[in-house]
């Protein structure tokens, strides 16, 4: 194979959507401004022109209504909707449909329902978008049994995981970090699928394990690079799929390094960070040589001012510091 071309994360998402729509008529896209506008972040660009307004469907501001409709359509088996919640921050107006309906139907109905739908949404701070447009709320979805939760960090993972998600017969919450849309990376032109539930070791190392997702993977890699200069070898584990979780890869890494730092952009408590720490404390305790470190934002809403926001988001410096504290 020739050198793989590089495309952006947003383009990778777009390719996965395009491929699935071309392959299966049942795949449709619904959401606010996904049509004419091509999605507020451009992820659905060109699809309205290619597949028309019936299959790329602009919706009113009725998230409970149209996400509920996606669930109903999926339950009938007549469609496989990919529905967009413009910002993850808006989940509050539609959470019942996601956590009580989509997540529970199969179980409540004794395994007789399939809900093949993907809820695509965006997360992440760093744009001075303030308290209601910057959150990383994956923990709220992870908490609720019945949802698969995906959070890619690279264009390659984005394409492969989105294809796998759309082809999955369960409700999948697919979370795209706004700060990643512009990053470029190698992505094969042909379609491919990355199995859900498989972590990826983004960098091997032997002194400390860092578990991080989405944008935090890149901060962790940045920190790892700096630490390498000081002779500290960091392993960066990217779970990619937060539910189900590849616990083995995480535990094996801790077994190797004996030390764990978890980096998460979600709020600190009842979070993905505490999740991984709890796994370490219960399943890898004997391998741990030092306290587990969690690098998270403070327990505050997200401030608007860039001067404050940059303090709020976990930084490479804070990760470095945390690593050094347990060495």
């Amino acid at each position, binding site marked *: 194979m020739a050198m793989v071309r590089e495309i952006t994360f947003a383009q990778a998402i777009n390719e996965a959507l395009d491929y699935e729509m071309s392959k299966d008529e049942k795949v*449709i896209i619904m959401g606010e401004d996904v049509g004419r506008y091509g999605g507020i972040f451009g992820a659905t660009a060109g699809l309205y022109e290619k597949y028309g307004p*019936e*299959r790329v469907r602009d*919706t*009113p501001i*009725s998230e*409970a*209504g*149209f*996400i*509920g*409709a*996606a*669930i*109903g*359509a*999926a*339950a*009938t*088996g*007549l*469609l496989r*909707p990919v529905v967009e919640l413009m910002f993850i921050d808006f989940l509050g*107006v539609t959470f*019942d*449909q996601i956590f*009580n*309906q989509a997540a529970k*139907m*199969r*179980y*409540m*109905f*004794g*395994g*007789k*329902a*399939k809900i093949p739908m993907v809820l695509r949404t965006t997360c992440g701070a760093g744009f001075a978008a303030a308290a209601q447009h910057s959150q990383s709320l994956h923990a709220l979805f992870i908490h609720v*049994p*019945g949802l*698969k939760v995906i959070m890619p960090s690279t264009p390659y993972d984005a394409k492969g995981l989105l294809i796998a998600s759309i082809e*999955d*017969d*369960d409700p999948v919450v697919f979370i795209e970090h706004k700060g990643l849309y512009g990053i470029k990376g190698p992505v094969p032109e042909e379609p491919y699928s990355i*199995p*859900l*539930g*498989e*972590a990826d070791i983004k960098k091997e190392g032997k002194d400390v394990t860092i578990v991080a997702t989405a944008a935090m993977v890149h901060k962790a890699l940045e920190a790892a690079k700096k630490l390498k200069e000081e002779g500290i070898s960091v392993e960066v584990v990217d779970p990619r*799929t937060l*539910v*189900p*979780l*590849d*616990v083995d890869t995480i535990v094996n890494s801790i077994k190797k390094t004996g030390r764990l730092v978890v980096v998460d952009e979600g709020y600190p408590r009842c979070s993905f960070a505490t*999740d991984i720490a*709890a*796994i370490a404390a*219960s*399943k890898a305790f004997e391998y741990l040589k030092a306290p587990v470190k969690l690098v998270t934002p403070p327990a505050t809403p997200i401030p608007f001012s860039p001067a404050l926001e940059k303090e709020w988001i976990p930084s490479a410096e804070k990760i470095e510091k945390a690593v050094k504290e347990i060495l």
Partner: protein
Amino acid sequence: MPVEEIPKETLLWMYETMVRIRLHEERVAELFAQGKVPGFVHLYSGEEAIAAGVMAHLRKDDFITSTHRGHGHYIAKGGDIKASMAELFGKKTGSCKGKGGSMHIADLDVGELGANGIVGGGIPHAVGAALGIKLNGLESVAVAFFGDGAANQGTFHESLNLASIWKLPVVFVCENNQYQISLPAKEHTNVKDIAERAKAYGIPGVAVDGQDVLAVYEVAKEAIERARRGEGPTLIEVKTYRFRGHFEGDPQVYRSKEEIKWWKENKDPIKIFEKILLEKGIFTKEELEKVWEKARKEIEGAVKFAEESPWPTKEDLTEDVFSTPTKGVLVWQW
């Protein structure tokens, strides 16, 4: 609608359906009192004409979404009473393997997309089913059932608007039994007819007497045919009354015994229908009695089946969360 215009087998089916629902509900009330059916149980007695009058027009490939008060919809849509009775008991042979219970009875094979413990939760699902129908070019329709209380939930508003702008084959059936648990409808809604709300979405709305199955049959016919023709949604408000408490065990402090008695005596949908069928000489008393007998047998058979069925086991507990197998685990064995 003049009873003469309705095929005799449809009349019989509606009568049977109403009787089966009534007997089912009254039997479940007993079973609840005996402690055999646990949990929250909301019965449909008094409202049978709605399920029967609407479902008379539906086919197996049509879809419905239901509510916490869902037994009647399930039965009328063709759900299996044996499986649902076992479900109410929490048995492994139940329609949801004992995992759902009264508030979550579903039968996707007959297009019953589920009862729902969340008021208003199922309305958008019917919209989605209708979208699926439309995009697949099918002739089916979807019907959403919900109560007067549900009509104040945001999902009602969003669903009717979506159905209207997308011109979907869906019919919204608001079962206005005049109470939202203890709150009288006139205290939660400030319009005479909830059907008037249809205008807010530019769709037809019609209010109808829900104790008269023929009236329900007629308005449902028009709405469902309209939907099948691709002309879009309708809101039907059916005025009715529940004969029992909100749920079994409800002390009903919010309404008088006289009120309940009046409705039972004067507005029992089965009695009203029966009278017409007999007066017009469409069926004999004996024919109708046979319906009761047959239904009684069916229900006793279901109760027996449920009682004799095994309980689900520990192993069943963690099954049925996901459908597509994946790597990775659902962490809980700490």
